[in-house]
């Protein structure tokens, strides 16, 4: 049996999305800036996709800027806002558990003379709102807090965070990459800027969007012919954008039912694993978490060895271990929870999706205890009574 439970890393494109994209490769391949029928066709498709994405988050069409994905969207929103509104202040506040792109963007801002503050999280991964209040001052230009964390699943109190930012005249950005399509999100929750990814809603890779609230601007990070309202130049990736639009439409219609279905599978996966494996623990918030996310750590063993063993059984998952990271550091998210390095090394991240059924969860929970036991038997750290 094969089961894929790494939807935070990559998702398949929905077949209906692929169908919608197909005409825009070799038939309707025009450039939306052109003045003839092929150009008009492309422009119409671009406008329709913009409407579909806007509709998913309760935005106006003109507030959507298409990009090449979530990383670019985070760069554009955070650096673009910090530069554009530098006169408002030079402090930027993020959380400790932002996506690595946001963490590294904040380091770049520090090099450019901004003062970056990191709001801590509690042991369940919720950003501490009291600490956030302390960190946001009148010199703060931007606060960026993710809507939910894709690794530990914890959902953040972003409406509260947005209010804290606005109380001090700061702008508020949320990276909604992991959350969009899994929980209702509406720009009326207080967002000035928002990052969206296409692949995370079963659209194609290489496409994303930034929501830019009407009346606000971002300093362009891609200089060119002035596409996307001058905020993001470059001839539009029409097939990709059409795909993201269709994906947004479908996820808007289907997410309610799917979220309920996934939450049942998630809870079964968590409960059965914790029951079957001694010294296994849930990372992240026990209830206030994304419906598709289960992050579990196993004492005395290391994540990459777990991944390899599970891969041999046809199970595809992820880990916060240093051994699977390009940086050779354990996940900054798990460290922010207060976990020790050796605890973070033994974590597994399961992110469920459309293809997963109850039998997939059963297959995992039946095989995982044996895999853990085999590795624990080999580990010099395992107490004798566990072997």
């Amino acid at each position, binding site marked *: 049996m094969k089961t894929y439970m790494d939807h935070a890393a990559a998702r398949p494109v929905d077949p209906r999305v692929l169908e919608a994209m197909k005409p825009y490769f070799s038939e309707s391949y025009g450039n939306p800036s052109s003045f003839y029928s092929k150009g008009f066709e492309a422009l119409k498709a671009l406008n329709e996709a913009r409407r579909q994405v806007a509709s998913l988050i309760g935005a106006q069409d003109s507030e959507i800027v298409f990009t090449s994905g979530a990383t670019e969207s985070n760069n554009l929103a955070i650096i673009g806002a910090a530069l554009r509104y530098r006169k408002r202040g030079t402090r930027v506040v993020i959380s400790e558990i932002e996506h690595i792109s946001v963490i590294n963007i904040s380091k770049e801002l520090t090099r450019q003379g901004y003062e970056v503050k990191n709001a801590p999280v509690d042991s369940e991964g919720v950003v501490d709102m009291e600490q956030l209040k302390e960190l946001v001052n009148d010199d703060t230009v931007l606060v960026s807090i993710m809507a939910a964390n894709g690794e530990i699943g914890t959902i953040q109190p972003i409406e509260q965070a947005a209010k804290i930012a606005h109380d001090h005249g700061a702008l508020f950005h949320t990276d909604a990459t992991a959350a969009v399509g899994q929980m209702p999100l509406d720009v009326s929750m207080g967002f000035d800027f928002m990052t969206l990814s296409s692949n995370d809603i079963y659209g194609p890779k290489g496409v994303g969007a930034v929501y830019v609230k009407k009346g606000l601007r971002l300093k362009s990070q891609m200089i060119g012919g002035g596409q996307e309202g001058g905020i993001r130049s470059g001839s539009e990736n029409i097939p990709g954008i059409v795909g993201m639009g269709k994906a947004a439409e479908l996820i808007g219609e289907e997410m309610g039912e799917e979220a309920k279905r996934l939450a049942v599978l998630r809870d079964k996966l968590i409960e059965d694993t914790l029951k079957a494996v001694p010294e296994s623990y849930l990372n992240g918030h026990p209830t206030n978490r994304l419906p598709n996310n289960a992050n579990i750590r196993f004492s005395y063993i290391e994540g*990459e*060895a777990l991944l390899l063993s599970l891969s041999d059984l046809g199970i595809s998952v992820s880990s916060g271990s240093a051994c699977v990271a390009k940086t050779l550091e*354990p996940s900054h998210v798990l460290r922010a929870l207060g976990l020790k390095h*050796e605890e973070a090394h033994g974590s597994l991240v399961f992110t469920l999706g459309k293809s997963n059924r109850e039998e997939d969860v059963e297959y995992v929970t039946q095989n995982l205890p044996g895999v853990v036991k085999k590795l624990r038997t*080999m580990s010099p750290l395992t107490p004798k009574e566990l072997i």
Partner: protein
Amino acid sequence: MMYSEKVLDHFRNPRNVGEIEDADGVGTVGNPVCGDMMSIYIKVKDDRIDDVKFKTFGCGAAIATTSMTTELAKGKTLDEAMEITRQDVADELGGLPPVKMHCSNLAADALHEAVKDYRKKKGEA
């Protein structure tokens, strides 16, 4: 990250896993904070490694390199065992991904520590 077939074989079917209760020498290197820690246990007879076992906490490469090290060490004289290098272990495994060469390929050091431990104990005896 792609491992060679030989690495995967030693990971899936590690040779000489376990502890030797009355080992003549024990060597432990690495630490759990880094994500890799291995212990090698040796029994010595007539200046040769008569039996060897290991326990490893760590990634696939850490487990495979320790397994291979115990295979290379078995039956060797203590001087020969001291000559086994990390590179020898990697070569025998058909190579390791570059990033794993320095962080996970520590087992040869654990073997050397075990031999030193034996020699130290013997010197004291």
